[in-house]
C-alpha cells in the first residue's frame, strides 16, 4: 500500500506492513501477489477519490439548497381575503387581514361612540371625555 504520510524520523512500521502473511519477510513472493497488491492499491485510490468527490458534491448541494431556500422562503402570512379563525394560544400566522367598512372607533372632543344596534341601526352616543 502506498504511504499515506511521508516517513517521519522515529516512526516504526508495524509488523507485517506491506507483507502478505503467507509470505513472511525474506520469502519469495509469487508474481500474482504483486499483481494483486497493485490492483488493491489502485482500487483503494479509486474508492478514496470517489469518497472525496462525493463529499464535495454533498457540500456543494447543501450550500446550493441553503441559498435557494434563503431567497425563496414561503411567506409567513399569505395575503388573501377573509379572516381565519385562529385557536386561542397560537400565533395568527396565516390569518388574513380583515376588511372593515364602518368606523370601529371615534375620535372627538365629546367622546362620541358609534355602535350598531338591533336591526342594524346605528346608535350614536355622546359622552364627555
Amino acid at each position, binding site marked *: 500500500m502506498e504511504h499515506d504520510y511521508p516517513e517521519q524520523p522515529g516512526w516504526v512500521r508495524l509488523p507485517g506492513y506491506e507483507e502478505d502473511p503467507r509470505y513472511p519477510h525474506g520469502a519469495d513472493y509469487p508474481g500474482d501477489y504483486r499483481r494483486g497488491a497493485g490492483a488493491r492499491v489502485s482500487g483503494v485510490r479509486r474508492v478514496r477519490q470517489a469518497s472525496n468527490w462525493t463529499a464535495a458534491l454533498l457540500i456543494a448541494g447543501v450550500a446550493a439548497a441553503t441559498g435557494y431556500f434563503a431567497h425563496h422562503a414561503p411567506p409567513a402570512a399569505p395575503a388573501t381575503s377573509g379572516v381565519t379563525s385562529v385557536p386561542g394560544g397560537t400565533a395568527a400566522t396565516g390569518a388574513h*387581514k380583515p376588511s372593515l367598512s364602518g368606523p*370601529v372607533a*371615534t*375620535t372627538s372632543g365629546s367622546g362620541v361612540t358609534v*355602535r350598531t344596534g338591533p336591526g342594524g341601526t346605528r346608535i350614536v352616543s355622546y359622552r364627555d*371625555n
Partner: protein
Amino acid sequence: MAAMGPGYRDWRPADVGATAVGVAERDALGTTARVVVWPPNWTGRVLAAVDAELALLDKQASRFRDDSEISRLHRALTLPADIGEAPLRRSGIVSEGLAEAISVALAAAEWTGGLVDPTVGGALIGLGYDRDFAALPQGQAREAAPPGPGYVPGWQSVRLDGRRLRLAAGVRLDLGATAKGLGSDRAARAAADCAPGGGVLVSLGGDIAVAGEAPLGGWPVLVSDEADQHGREPAVHGARQVYAPEEPPGQLVRLAAGALATSSVRCRQWQRGGRTLHHIVDPRTGLPAAGPWRMVSVAAANCAEANAAATAAIVAGEQAAGWLTAQGLPARLGARDGSVCLLSGWPAAVGGLVTVPATARMPAAPSGRRDGTGRPPEDFSRPARPDRVR
C-alpha cells in the same frame, strides 16, 4: 365578538357591525376606553394586557385619586402656592412609569414652546376642575364669582433627572395633555404583543393608538364633529365632505399606523360665575383657551405627540395652522364658526388614509437639565405610609 371570559367583566362588548374584529369598551381614567382586536380570538388576553397598563397609569398619574403616586407626591413636595419666584423646595424619587409620564409632559411643553404645560394643575383646580369630571356638578354654577386667572408656574419649574423629581412650591402637575395619549401608546404596544400577527387599536376617550398589522386599508375611524351651538354642521375649506343623513357630522378616515388624537373645547365644560369653562387652560393666561378652534384632530407617530399637538393647536389659536404645518403633522381643525381646515396631507375624501409621519416630531424627553440638591430624595414610587403623608 369573541367571548372575553371571566376576569373581564368590566369590559362590554361593542357591536360595530363587523365580526372580523373583537371590540370592547370600559370606563377607565375618567373616560371610555375602547379596544379593537383582530383576529378576535385574541381579545381576552389583549384586554388583560390593556387592563394592566390602564391600572398602572391610573395609579401613577391620576390627580383625582387620593392614593395615586402623583397625589402623594403633590402632598409631600408642594406647599401652598406663593406667587412669584418660587424656590425649589424638595425632591423625590418617582416610579419609572411616572417619570416617563412627566418626562413626556415636559418634552411636550418644550416642543410646543409652553403651549401645553403640565403645571396648569393649580389653575384647573382654581377654575373648578378639582375632581373627576363625572363628579363635577353639571348644568349649574358651582361658584357665583367669575373665575380669575389661575397661577401657572411654568414647566421650567419642574426638574426631572432620571427618576428624581423636584417641584417648586405650589406646583400642581396635570398631565392631561399627554397622559391619555401615553396610555394609549403603552396599551397598544402591550396589546400588540398579545396578538402576534394581528393588530390592535386602543382608544382612550378618542385618543387612538394602533399597533401590529392594520386591517386592509387601515382602521376606519370617525372623526366626529358636533354641530356647533347654533346647530350648524361643519363646512370644509377646499374640500368636499359628504355626510350620510344617519351619520353624525364628521369624517371617516383610515389609520394604518401611528396615532390620532382630538382635543376640544366643547367637552368637559362646566359653569362658573355665569361663564362656561372648559379644561384646556392657556398657560399664558391661566384661563381656558379662547382661540378660534373648537376641536382639533392630529395624526402623529405616537399618541402622546398627537395629543400634545392637538391641545397645543387649541391654545395656539390663530398660529395653530402655521405651527402644525411646520411640524408636518396631518391635522383637521374645526372652527367655532363650523368651518373645517385640513392641513399637511389630511385626506379631504371621506374614508381617506391619514398618512402619519414615520418618525416622531416631539423629542422623547426634554433636553437635559441636571440639578443637584443636598437633601436625600424621598421615594414616592413605593406605597405611602400614613406617617409619610403630610
